[in-house]
């Protein structure tokens, strides 16, 4: 778990200062990290709020970005199935890319009992959660003293750019990305952020079709 922690620091800071750069308070910013606890979708929600998107568009986008958690959840569930309801709910709240990666790797190769599995999950999650919250609050306070012309909000599309470029593993992924970008650009002036939604959907579809045709 520890090697994965430094990577979240810049994202935590960005999640902290971007709402402040949009004019919200440090407490708003922290509440975002506390209630959502899902980095990329937090940034998406903030960017869309700044574009005056409707709440449905925001929730749909958040759901799309966080859809991968269903897969993680399915993979972790058998290992925590016998835990009590509160533990499972907390495990759900605390689910992240990072804890999924280490549990997915370590649960099958160790013969841990339920308590050991919970302790492993809880330990890693608490570290990550604490660091994320701390970075958000620090970022939010930093955001309050940094003048508006620094344009820190531009860090959101730049962060998405770095995240997106990181996902381009195969040609099908590149097709999905380019289609998403082109359709979103073509629909830039459509009402209700339809360009974004159509871009996302057609990008996914293009990736699936491209893979199917080329298999």
């Amino acid at each position, binding site marked *: 778990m520890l090697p994965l922690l430094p990577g979240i620091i810049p994202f935590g800071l960005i999640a902290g200062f971007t709402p402040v750069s949009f004019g919200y308070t440090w407490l*708003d910013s922290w509440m975002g990290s506390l*209630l959502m*606890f899902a980095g990329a979708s937090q940034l998406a929600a903030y960017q869309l709020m700044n574009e005056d998107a409707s709440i449905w568009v925001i929730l749909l986008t958040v759901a799309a970005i966080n859809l991968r958690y269903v897969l993680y*959840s399915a993979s*972790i569930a058998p290992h925590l199935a016998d835990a009590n309801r509160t533990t499972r709910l907390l495990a759900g709240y605390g689910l992240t890319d990072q804890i999924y990666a280490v549990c997915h790797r370590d649960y099958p190769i160790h013969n841990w009992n339920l308590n050991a599995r919970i302790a492993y999950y809880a330990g890693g999650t608490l570290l990550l959660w604490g660091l994320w919250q701390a970075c958000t609050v620090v970022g939010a306070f930093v955001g309050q003293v940094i003048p508006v012309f620094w344009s820190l909000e531009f860090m959101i599309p730049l962060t998405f750019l770095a995240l997106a470029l990181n996902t381009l593993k195969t040609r099908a992924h590149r097709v999905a990305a380019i289609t998403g970008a082109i359709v979103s650009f073509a629909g830039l002036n459509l009402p209700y952020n339809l360009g*974004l939604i159509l871009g996302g959907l057609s*990008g996914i579809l293009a990736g699936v079709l491209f893979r199917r045709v080329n298999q």
Partner: protein
Amino acid sequence: MTQEFIIIVALAGLVTLALKSAFIEGQHYFTLPKWFVDALEFVPPAILCALIIPGIFKGKVGLIAAFGAVTIDPKPIAAAVAALAFFMTKKTIPTLTAGMASLYLVYWLQI
């Protein structure tokens, strides 16, 4: 606290929790269909790229709010430089730094 902001992040938090807990809570009731799993890997590149576009071509940026508009929008150029930095370094921090630095530079060159 800003009421509207808190309401949105609270609802978004509920949506997130529902997705994260889908199987931890409801594993006995449903299994993931194959088309869903197949499509899932294309969600991040498609959605993130669709999100980048309004952020680059529409988003309000503090520089312009503070010092006024310029002829050539610095954001798309800054994003292109950031993408180049990513391809060269494969790292996040240099990507963000290159993007922000070129945003300031392209703006400054026009004032």
